[in-house]
């Protein structure tokens, strides 16, 4: 499975979200999920199974398919809940 974190320029925010998702995956002991980051222009449907976007660019990324919208990009608890939910939906964790 692949997760793509997306932000406006694909440099800082999405990179941070990627690192945070990786940290959460590590805590959960999940290893076979690939995470990367990208800008809004480069991200296309099919790049990944799930896309993580912040609330402020959610409209611009609605076409991507399976999109998870983050209310706050710095809230690790919110991210942890949402990553867990994604993994549970796909049967990666129980």
């Amino acid at each position, binding site marked *: 499975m692949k997760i793509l974190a997306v932000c406006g320029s694909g*440099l*800082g925010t999405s990179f941070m979200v990627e690192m945070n998702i990786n940290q959460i995956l590590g805590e959960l002991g999940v290893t076979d999920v690939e995470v990367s980051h990208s800008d809004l222009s480069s991200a296309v449907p099919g790049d990944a199974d799930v896309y993580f976007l912040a609330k402020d660019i959610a409209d611009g990324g609605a076409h991507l398919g399976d999109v998870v919208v983050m209310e706050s990009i*710095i809230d690790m608890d919110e991210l942890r809940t949402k990553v867990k939910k994604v993994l549970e939906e796909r049967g990666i964790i129980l």
Partner: protein
Amino acid sequence: MSTLIDILSQPAILVALIALIGLAAQKKKMSDTVKGTTKTFVGFLVISAGAGILQTALTPFGAMFEEAFNVSGVVPNNEAIVALALTDYGTNTALIMFFGMVVNILIARLTRYKYIFLTGHHTLYMAAMLAVIMAVAGFNTFGLIAAGSIALGIIMTLSPAILQPFMRQLTGNDNVALGHFSAVGYAASGLVGKLFKGSKENNTENINFPKGLGFLRDSTVSIALTMIIMYVIVALFAGPSFIESELSGGTNFLVFSFIQAGSFAAGVFIILSGVRLVLAEIVPAFKGISTKLVPDAKPALDVPIIFTFAPNAVLIGFFASFIGGIFSMVIMVFAGGVIILPGVVPHFFTGAAAGVFGNATGGFKGSIAGAFVNGIIISFLPVFLMPVLGELGFANTTFSDADFGVSGIFFGTLANYSGPIAITIGLIVIIALMAIPAKKKKSSHKGEEKAV
């Protein structure tokens, strides 16, 4: 020996080596180490390729602008100027970035300024600017890297520090800092917002604001659109005969302008991909090592982290800042000299953030006034920054965000007084001020603001 120097003077190889050291230090798997090192190496070459495209697209713009208005026009864009700087100052930039991160960790570990600056692309851009300024100031290679690294470490610490009072007010806690080198503009916006304290309840988020312009957050779209508008306006003033005889080789002047504007956006797109590859291994390594060495540090993170606090203020701030940019441009037209054109990207990101801080301290009115002031600040700083950048000051692009202007002008002015000596003394004084423990807060806060 000369082979070794050849290897180390190739910035692409040097950054790959830095990535390799970082990966080895984290005891990564062999396959991950090879992958990461290679990507970093290729990433640097991608940036150079983008720089070539960008220069080809920007040169005709400069020529047309001068033909039309008899002055030079500058479009501030960080990616563009950094890519140009890296072609000549790549090695020094890579070394300053690496040791600058080390200095950042040391300052966070040893002083009361517990900030770790994690916005890697801004670290890279600031390293590039310092490499240029220290070279223009007349340092030798060793001194240049030492002074550049210490300056970078200081800026990485003080930029989040001056903004932290406003961040506390905005986020309601003291755990996260903002790592974006336009802090002077944001702090100014926060201060301007305070003038409207009375109307604080009149928050931007209580207004129904159209959201249709969110697509401008897509940087490729906004860069291409603004460049097309600017290119076409300038082309109309320069006239078809000049463009078709001198620049386009007979191609219709408007068609030519469209293609060049699009190529500029293409160049930035490529540079961004390269920057992403270069940073992919270095930033996580920096983050991992700094968390180990400075466990109580506050991470300073990229600017969009604050956008979700006030999405309306983001758009209001962009407009107000952009209008500030146009207002400044009109003043420059009357004043003579270079003209700084308002780019959508810097105004969007820094204007948006200024709008959020202005809103936090002064509501709707504070948001507009603060972002407007930010727009003026980021328009006028480049005018004074460009003369200290040596050859690069004559490019038709320059650094766009406020802290680049403030620190560049600060070190450039010191260099003009008495070159490396003045800069060395300046750095020692700032470090000494930062080493003062917390109780003398008031006096050292003044030093902070001047230093950044």
